[in-house]
């Protein structure tokens, strides 16, 4: 079906190739193969489907059709660079690589080329400081926000005090996994808990030692920073040692359906942070079904609607589309360019009312981006896996992270980056 469609599109493109269509281009550097495909596929589907919906239902954004050229990275930085170079000439408005490694790769490149990059809940945390990182955005929350939200949730569970409690951080031994350490250490000072660090080397197929250690030391909470096969194994091992699952809290990249399903009933009660709602109980999914899935235009097989990663991809697309609207409003043109896109992103305001209009009431936190603050509100919720119903259930409202502590860390890290690269602060 897709081949036919694509053939038709190609044919159409060839016949009217000469006048370049003014389109809004959102390259999707996706990974549908390799060790992390399980997370990459539904995200890419959600991202593509939302733009297809806008095209089919509204005729694009502000009258301009959208286009989402996909490029397979397999979560590999070299292929990511190839994809970036291959797509940037097309008039790309925004990049969302969904990989911390590729993000670090692209930060200098997009800054030199002047194309905004949105790393939603991943990437370089200190990019939240818009004064230093002109082109990089990571609203609505970053790794450090997630760490803080996890601590806050633990505080809630303990009735307000973590004094003398112990928390173990089980993390992927890479740049990604080491991100929360600093924040958790700062927060340990503030709240008086003991932090134990337990690294797991990639890929994380074998974690017996680590879980025996957890079983010996019996930390009150296990915070979890995994990705790929490490997620499934950790949740299985936690079930094996009968660790109380509601004290086992993962970051938002360790809390999707493929992570918990292999462990079956054992995963029941496992928690993770998230910054979007899950499930299909939002009006927008009716539109998606009618305009996209039923017409056979869905990027995937239409099965993943409502899954955590799908919704996240859709949310990312929604934020990008809203930023385009804002940019169109500011500059008064419909065919915006990358620099105008950045202005749109820096003025982005997604209110609860707006989300209601879009058919996604309370789907994500209210987002407000400014020139200084590229990190949005720093909010997230805690969701819990219900194994019998096979779905994630949000058990809290959006929690505000401890931005006081985090902002200090962000300023410190971004100042170091600015000094290293000779960047002058902007927005003054």
């Amino acid at each position, binding site marked *: 079906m897709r081949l036919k469609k694509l053939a038709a599109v190609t044919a159409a493109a060839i016949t009217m190739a000469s006048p370049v269509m003014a389109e809004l281009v959102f390259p999707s550097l996706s990974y549908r193969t390799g060790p992390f495909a*399980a997370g990459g596929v539904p995200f890419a589907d959600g991202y593509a489907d939302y733009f297809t919906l806008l095209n089919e239902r509204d005729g694009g954004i502000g009258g301009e059709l959208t286009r989402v050229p996909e490029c397979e990275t397999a979560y590999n930085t070299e292929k990511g660079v190839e994809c970036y170079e291959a797509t940037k000439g097309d008039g790309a408005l925004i990049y969302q690589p969904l990989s911390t490694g590729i993000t670090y790769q692209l930060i200098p490149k997009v800054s030199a080329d002047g194309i905004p990059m949105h790393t939603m809940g991943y990437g370089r945390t200190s990019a939240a400081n818009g004064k230093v990182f002109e082109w990089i955005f990571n609203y609505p929350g970053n790794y450090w926000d997630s760490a803080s939200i996890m601590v806050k949730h633990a505080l809630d569970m303990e009735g307000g005090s973590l004094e003398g409690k112990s928390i173990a951080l089980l993390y992927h031994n890479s740049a990604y996994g080491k991100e929360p350490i600093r924040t958790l250490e700062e927060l340990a000072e503030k709240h008086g808990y003991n932090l134990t660090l*337990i690294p797991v080397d990639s890929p994380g*197929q074998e974690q017996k*030692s680590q879980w025996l250690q957890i079983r010996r030391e019996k930390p009150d909470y296990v915070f979890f920073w995994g990705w790929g096969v490490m997620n499934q194994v950790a949740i299985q091992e936690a079930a094996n040692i009968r660790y109380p699952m509601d004290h086992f809290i993962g970051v938002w990249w360790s809390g999707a359906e493929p992570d918990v399903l292999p462990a079956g009933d054992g995963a029941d009660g496992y928690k993770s942070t998230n910054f979007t709602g899950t499930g299909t109980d939002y009006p927008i999914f009716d539109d998606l079904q009618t305009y996209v899935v039923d017409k056979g235009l869905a990027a995937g097989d239409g099965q993943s609607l409502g899954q955590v990663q799908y919704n996240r991809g859709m949310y990312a697309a929604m934020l990008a589309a809203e930023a385009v609207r804002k940019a169109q409003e500011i500059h008064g043109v419909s065919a915006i360019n990358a620099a105008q896109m950045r202005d749109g992103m820096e003025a982005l305001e997604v209110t609860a009312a707006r989300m209601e209009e879009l058919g996604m009431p309370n789907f994500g936190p209210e987002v407000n981006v400014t020139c200084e603050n590229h990190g949005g509100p720093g909010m997230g919720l805690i969701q819990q896996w219900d194994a019998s119903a096979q779905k994630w259930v949000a058990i809290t409202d959006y929690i505000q992270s401890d931005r006081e502590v985090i902002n200090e860390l962000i300023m410190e890290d971004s100042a170091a980056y600015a000094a290293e690269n000779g960047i002058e602060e902007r927005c003054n």
Partner: protein
Amino acid sequence: MPDQLLYALEVTLNGLMAGVLYSLVALGFVLIFKASGIFNYAQGVMALFAALTLVGIQEGQVPFSHLINAIFGTEIHHFGWTVPAILAIMLTAAVMVVFAWAVERFVLKHLVNQPDIILFMATIGLAYFMEGVGDLMWGADIKKLDVGLPQGGSIWLEENTAWLGGDGFYGFFIDRLDIVATVVAAILVISLTLFSQYSKQGRALRAVADDHQAALSVGISLRFIWVLVWSIAGFVALVAGIMWGTKSGVQFSLSLIALKALPVLMLGGFTSIPGAIVGGLIIGVGEKLFEFFIGPMVGGATENWFAYVLALLFLVFRPQGLFGEKIIERV
């Protein structure tokens, strides 16, 4: 007993169990290396492929459905039936036999008498090929593998050993899946030994392993033996795939377990079945104890390299591995 000692004992026990799982993968390598002198890098991917096929058959997935749907615009995914585990395992074993035949027919036959490194590279090519085919056939998502094996800590053992230590001691932890794996590995090794000692084909197998040309001259079909040995290796891969796949779900990373088996091979010797078992146990215990005692001092996550360094040190003193055949060099 002091708790620290109990913990060390527990780590050792779990190390032994982990070692058995490594041995299962290493066994496949040894079988092929013995019979044909090929270092089969594709063993890990074979385990992945076997596990994928098993799940696919069990759930009645349509092979190549994604490709078919893309070309013909159809919407097929499942046949709509499920196959009982035992039958699915047998069917998968049959698929692995077909695979072994294909490997012999299309790859090995053309590479007879080539240097070892060429054969090694061919198996890496094979690994790429099978990874692609596996993904095309069954899709790249994570699949839950359930053939009814028990999982989770053994509660009986925990309750009956808790009195050994103080208040904080919960009793020994052993995963029931690991126990099953150990039993299966034992049965596998015993039956392989019996097969190679007492059956006609088994004796032919050993003759080929000993000397290709002499075996040929007494009328043993080398090609049949190779198909046989790759089939057995395929079956061993299936068993390893089931064990590891039950733990983590069936997904791409399953193919990386080959890397866990390599130090086992070095230590045990490329040509020895008991070596693969003993090597696996030593590596399993060694890396777990190292992580337990030394890991906290150097920041943990030592397991990936420790096994290799252990094997390396060992080899410096015994270059042919623990049970490997003595290397005799002539000019």
